[in-house]
C-alpha cells in the first residue's frame, strides 16, 4: 500500500503552507492523494493526518462523508450512470442493466482486470442530455446502449486518454496561491465590525 510519493509529499507540504490553519488543507490533500493512487490508501490517510495535525480517524471521517473521495480501490475508469428523474425517463435503468451485462459486474463492483468500476449516481446536472454518464467525473451525455458500448471500447483502447483524466483525479486545477485576503486584514476588519456593533448596542442600551 502506498503513501504519497516524495514529489507529492513536497507538494502537500506546499499546499498546507497556503492556509492559515493547517487543518484547512485536509480536503485539498485528499484530492492530491487520490489523484496519485485513485483512492485514499490508509498510508496516505495517516500521512495527511500528520501533515494537517489531526488523527487518522478524523481524516477518514471527513473523507467518508464525500462520495467522490474513495476509501477503497476503484477501477481505472469509474463509470457513473445517473438514474435521477430526467435520466430515468430517458432510460437510465435500462442503460444501467445493459452496462452491468456489458462489463460483467454489478453496480458498485470493479472488473477483475481493475479497468472499470460501475456506479449509480445522483443527478449530475446534465439533465438536458439524458442519460448522462460520467467517467472519472467527466461527462458523456445522451448515452444509449450502443453509444455506451462505443464509449467502453474507446476507453479500453485508450482513445479517450486526452479527455478523461487519470483515475481518481477530481480537480485538475491545483491551488498554488494563498488565499487572496491577508489574515491580519481579515482580523482587523472583524475587530472593527465587532467594535461598531458593541457601540451600537451600548448606544441602544443607553437610550433604554
Amino acid at each position, binding site marked *: 500500500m502506498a503513501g504519497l510519493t516524495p514529489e507529492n509529499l513536497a507538494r502537500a507540504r506546499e499546499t498546507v503552507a497556503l492556509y492559515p490553519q493547517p487543518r484547512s488543507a485536509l480536503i485539498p490533500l485528499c484530492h492530491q492523494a487520490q489523484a496519485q493512487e485513485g483512492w485514499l490508501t490508509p498510508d496516505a490517510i495517516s500521512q495527511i493526518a500528520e501533515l494537517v495535525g489531526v*488523527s*487518522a*480517524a*478524523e481524516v477518514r*471521517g471527513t473523507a*467518508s462523508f464525500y462520495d467522490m473521495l474513495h476509501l477503497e480501490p476503484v477501477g481505472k475508469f469509474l463509470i457513473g450512470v445517473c438514474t435521477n428523474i430526467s435520466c430515468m425517463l430517458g432510460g437510465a435503468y435500462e442503460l444501467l442493466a445493459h452496462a452491468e451485462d456489458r462489463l460483467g459486474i454489478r453496480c458498485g463492483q470493479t472488473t477483475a482486470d481493475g479497468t472499470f468500476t460501475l456506479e449509480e449516481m445522483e443527478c449530475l446536472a446534465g439533465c438536458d442530455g439524458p442519460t448522462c454518464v460520467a467517467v472519472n467525473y467527466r461527462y458523456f451525455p445522451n448515452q444509449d446502449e450502443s453509444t455506451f458500448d462505443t464509449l467502453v471500447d474507446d476507453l479500453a483502447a485508450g482513445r479517450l486518454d486526452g479527455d478523461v483524466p487519470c483515475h481518481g483525479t477530481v480537480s485538475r486545477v491545483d491551488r498554488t496561491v494563498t488565499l487572496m485576503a491577508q489574515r491580519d486584514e481579515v482580523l482587523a476588519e472583524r475587530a472593527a465590525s465587532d467594535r461598531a456593533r458593541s457601540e451600537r448596542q451600548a448606544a441602544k442600551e443607553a437610550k433604554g
Partner: protein
Amino acid sequence: MPVSVNESGIPSEDTVTITVNGKQIAAAKGEMIISATDRAGVNVPRFCYHPRMKPVGMCRMCLVEVSGPRGMSLQPACYLPVADGMEVVTDSEKVRKAQDGVLEFLLVNHPLDCPVCDKGGECPLQDQTLAYGPGESRFVEEKRHWAKPIELSDLVLLDRERCIQCARCTRFASEIAGDPLIDFFSRGDSTEVAIAPGEKFTSYFSGNTVQICPVGALTATPYRFAARPWDLEQVESTCTSCATGCRVVVQSSSNQVIRYLGVDSDPVNQSWLCDKGRFDFEAHRAGSRVTVPMVREGGELVECTWAEALRKAAEGIGRAMEVASDPSSAVGVIGGARLANEDAYAWAKLVKSVIGTDSVDADLGDGLPADAVLGLPKATIDEVCSAPLVLVMTPDLRELAPILFLRLKAAAQSGRTKVIELTSVGTALGRYATETLVYRPGEAASLVAALFADSDPKPLAAGMEIPPIAGVAASDVARTRALLAGFSSAVAVVGRPSLAESTEATVAAVAALSAARPETRYLTVHRRGNLHGALDAGLAPGILPGRVTLEGGRSTFAAESGWGRVPASTGMSTHEILRSAAQGSLGALILLGADPVVDFPDHESEKALSGGAFVVAVTAHLCESARRADVVLPAAMYAERGGTTTNFEGRVTTLGKKVTPPGQAWEDWAIAAELATALGSDLGFTSFDDIAAERTRLVPLFRHFTPHIWNAPSTRDGVLLPLATAPVGLTGAPRALDPVATPGIGSLPHHAVRPPSPSPLFAGTGTTGPSGAVASPGAVRFSRPASPPDLPAPDAYSLRLVAPYRLYDCGTHVVGSAHLAALAPVGTVRVNHYDLDRLGASTGDTLRAVSPGGSHQVVVEVDDEVQRGTAVMGFNLAVAEGSVSARSLIDLSAPVTDIRLEAHR
C-alpha cells in the same frame, strides 16, 4: 474576594430571569436553557447534551418552545443561551409533537434488542421512549444491519446498530480526552462511529465513552453481560488507584464488585475516571489474592489460623524488640498508602507507641518527603486550574494522575491558565503548555534558580555564547523568565519527575522555587493512593498524627491521656530501612501493603528480604515481597472496607464498603488491633468510630471530623482539613445527579438533597487558608536542603537515566486485572537515534547496560522525543526474557543514575 451567591448558587451580578412554563426562574448569563431548567427541576428530555461537554444540538430531543422576535418557535434547549425575559415552554402540544417525531425518527434504525442489551434497565433511550414519544413506530421497512459488536479497543466494544449518533463519545474523545481516535464515518443512515483501520481506541480515558453513551452502543468488555442493572447494589466511594481521589460509585452483584462509574465531583473529577481506576476492580478476584493467613514452615508458606499467624508475628516482632536498645533500629515498617485514614491511624498507634519504632515510611521512594507534602503551602486542583500561571514540575501527569491531567489540560485549553512545564522527557501535557523546557535529568534546581534569577543568563566571557542552563538553551530560559516575571503569584504542581533521580534532586528544585517566590502555593502530586492520609496519620519517620513533628506532638501523645509513649528520636526512611535489612541489622520488617522487592527504585531493594529480618506482610495479594515473608496476613481491599481517604490536595472523602472481604481477610485497623493484643497491649479500638473518636480528641487537625461530618450530604465532595469553623459559602452551583449524563448510577442519597448554602460548619470546596498547614507550634515545615546535591558532570559516553512512572505497570492492581494487564507496555530503554547510531544498534536490539546496579541486558528502542544523552525506561514494567527492569539499574543513593550502553556479546 467573596462573591455573593443567591439561592440557586449563581453569583447575583450574572443573573438573568427567564420564564419556564409560566414560572419565573433565575439563570446565569450565558448558560444554555437546559441547564437553567435542570436547576429549576423542570425536565427536558435529551441525548446529546452532556453537562461536562460543549453542546452540539445534534439529536433534537430537547426541543422546547422559546419566545423570540417572531413569536414562539421550537429551539433546542441545549443549544440556545438564556436571555433576560426569555419565555420557555417545555410541555405544550407543539413540544410534545416535536418529541414524538424525534423519538420515532431515532428509533427508525434502532434494533430494540433491549432484552439482550447491557444498557437495558438503565438506558436513557429506553427511559425517555417510555416517558415521551408516540410509543409506536410507522416504520415497517428493513432496518439497517451491522456486525455486532466490533472492538474499538480491548476495553471498549461498539454495537453500531444501537448508536443514535449523539456524538457524545466522539466529542469526549477529541474535546475532553484529547485522543480523537474515534470519529463518525460516512453519512446519512450509514453513519457509524469508527476508528481508522489498523488503529485502536487506546486512550487512558476510553471507559468514559461507555459511561456517557446514552444507549447500549458502547459497552466495556469487563462488564459485558456481567449483570443487569436491577441486580446491582451500589455505594458512593473514592478511587484510590492513584492519589487524585476521583469520586465513584462501586456497584456489586452477588457480593462481587462488578463496575465503577464516575460521580460528578466538581472540585475533583467532574464525572470522569481513567481506565485504570475504572477497570482495576478485577484485582479483587485475582488468583494472587490472599484470603487465609499463612506462616513459613520448613521454607514454605502454609495456611494457618489467625491466632497462630498473629502469635508467630508477635513473637518475631517481640524478639527483634528485645535484642535492640532502640526499637527504631530494630523494627521497620514500610507502606500504608493503601490504607484508609482510620486504618492508618490505628497502625500509627501500633507502630509508634506499642512497638515504639519511628522507622515507618508510607513513601516507597517515589514521592516527595513528608515535610514537603505536609509543610508546603497548599493549592487545590481548582486553584491550580484557575491560576493564570502554573509551573508544572512533575512526571507525565497523564501517567501519574490522569484526571488531574484532564483538568489541567482543560484549564490550559480554555486560555485561562498558562502552563509552564519543566521536564526531562516529553509528556502529554506538552501539547497544551505555553512553554516546555526540557532539562537534563536531576538538574531542575539550577533551571528553577535561573528562571527566577534577577537577570538573564550571561556569557562566561564577553563575546562568548551564553551556555545552556541544565541543558536548556539560554534564549528559552530568558523568554520563560520574562513570562514568569509578569505574574505576581505562582502556583506549582510538583512531584518526582523520575524514579531514577533521588528525592534530594527534586526537593532542591522545590526549595529553589520557594526561596525565589516564597508566596508560591503547591499541589504536591504523588503516586500512591492514600499517601497523604498515611502521612496525616503519622506513618513517616519524625512525625505524629496531625502534621506535627515528634517534638510537636510529644506532649499530647506521650501523655497517659494520649498513647502513653512515642519514639524518642526520628527513625529510618524506607530506603534506610531496606538498607539496614539488607545488612542484617534490622530485626523485623512489617510490609503494610508494600512490595519493595519490585516496587522500590533501587537495584538493591531485593536484598532487603534476604538479610535475615523477620518479615510480616500485611497484604491483599501474594506479591513478590509477600512470597518471601515469614508471616502473611490477609487484608481487605478497596470496596471491602469503609472509612475515609485523602487525595493529594489533602481533601478527605469517604470510602464505601460494598462487599465483604473474601475468605478470612480482615480490615487493616482490625489487624493492627489484634497484633497489639498479641504483643500484650491494647489499642483501645473495637470499631472505626473508636478510632475517629480518639483522633478527634487528640489531633487538632481532625477536630470536629467525626463520621457524622464525613457522612453528611454537604461534604460529599470531601473536606480540606482542618475544618473551617466559620460558615463558608459553597463555590459553584449545586448539582443534582443527572441520570442521562451518567446512566447507571440511579440515585445516591447524598445527591438527592441540595447542600445548604452557606453550609454551617465548612465548605465542601473551601481551602485551608493561605498556609495550608496547621498553625500549631509543632507543625511539620518544609525543610530546605542547604544546597542542591552535587551532580556528576555529563560525560560523552553515559546516558542519564529517567525512570518515569507508567499508568499500566506491574503493580498488583494492573496485573490482577486481566483486561488492564494486557495493555501494560514492555519495558525498553528508549534513546535518541543519535545515541543508538553510535553503537550501530537499532530498535529491538539487546544491549548491555552498565549501571551502578551492575551490568545487565536491556532491549533498546529509538525515540527521538528523548533528548540526546538521556535514556528513558518506564518503572516496574515487564521486560523481555533475560533483560532487567529499570529498578535493577537505579542507584537511589546517588542523586542521578548514569548508565552506559554497550554492544552485547
